[in-house]
């Protein structure tokens, strides 16, 4: 089951479905790295609201996606981590250090937009 990627302006939105396999996650990483270039996207949002578990592999892959996308010149926000999922991650000792997170899709889009605006001011 591949993760659908939606293109909206210069943003790519990937909505993860429940019960993703390791392979699906790795496929998503590769797809995003490629599409950031093809669509000249500035940012990527990964919506994990449908996931009922984020384990060490998923956490590591999300970090890998964020770093890969950054190296391709775009920024990433992971949105929609559910309360129980967040709590279990903390208990297990999993972290998403260095990865931007936001409450939901709306907050994620707003955050990435303000990041882009800041960059334009610096330029």
């Amino acid at each position, binding site marked *: 089951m591949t993760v659908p990627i939606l293109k909206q302006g210069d943003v790519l939105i990937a909505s993860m479905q429940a019960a993703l*396999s390791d392979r699906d996650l790795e496929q998503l990483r590769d797809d995003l790295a490629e599409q950031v270039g093809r669509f000249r996207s500035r940012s990527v949002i990964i919506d994990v609201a449908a996931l*009922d578990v984020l*384990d*060490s592999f998923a956490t*590591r892959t999300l970090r890998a996606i964020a770093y890969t996308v950054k190296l391709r010149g775009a920024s990433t926000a992971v949105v929609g981590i559910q309360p*129980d999922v967040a709590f*279990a991650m903390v208990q*297990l*000792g999993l972290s998403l250090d260095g990865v931007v997170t936001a409450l939901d899709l709306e907050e994620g889009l707003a955050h990435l937009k303000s990041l882009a605006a800041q960059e334009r001011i610096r330029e």
Partner: protein
Amino acid sequence: MSDEMCVPIERENDIVTARQKGRELAATTGFSTTDQTMIALAISEIARNIISYAQRGEVTLSRLSDGRRRGVLIVARDAGPGIPDIQLAMRDGYSTGKSLGVGLPGAKRVMDDFELVSSPGKGTTVTMAKWLR
């Protein structure tokens, strides 16, 4: 649902199956969604260890009762290479390179009972339980 089931762990998709079955069992036993998530996460970590280090094995899920309390019992077995240094494997952040090194110590943290038995060349068995409060 029967009270005991065995999920063979042979491909990475089986990890998803094991944690889904574990969550269902935890739900019907009466655990909160927070505890269900914790149990599913612990199963995910130990099932992944089977794939990473032993290639194949099984996860057995069952209900527990000691007369006063109820809970769930999860046993992960493999006949893989075994763990040469269990103390080291249980240390936070230690990994032989195939993981983040949080799986075993993390699973122990989120469960109430946790036992790891391993002998080099013979395999590894992780037994863990969580009780309803």
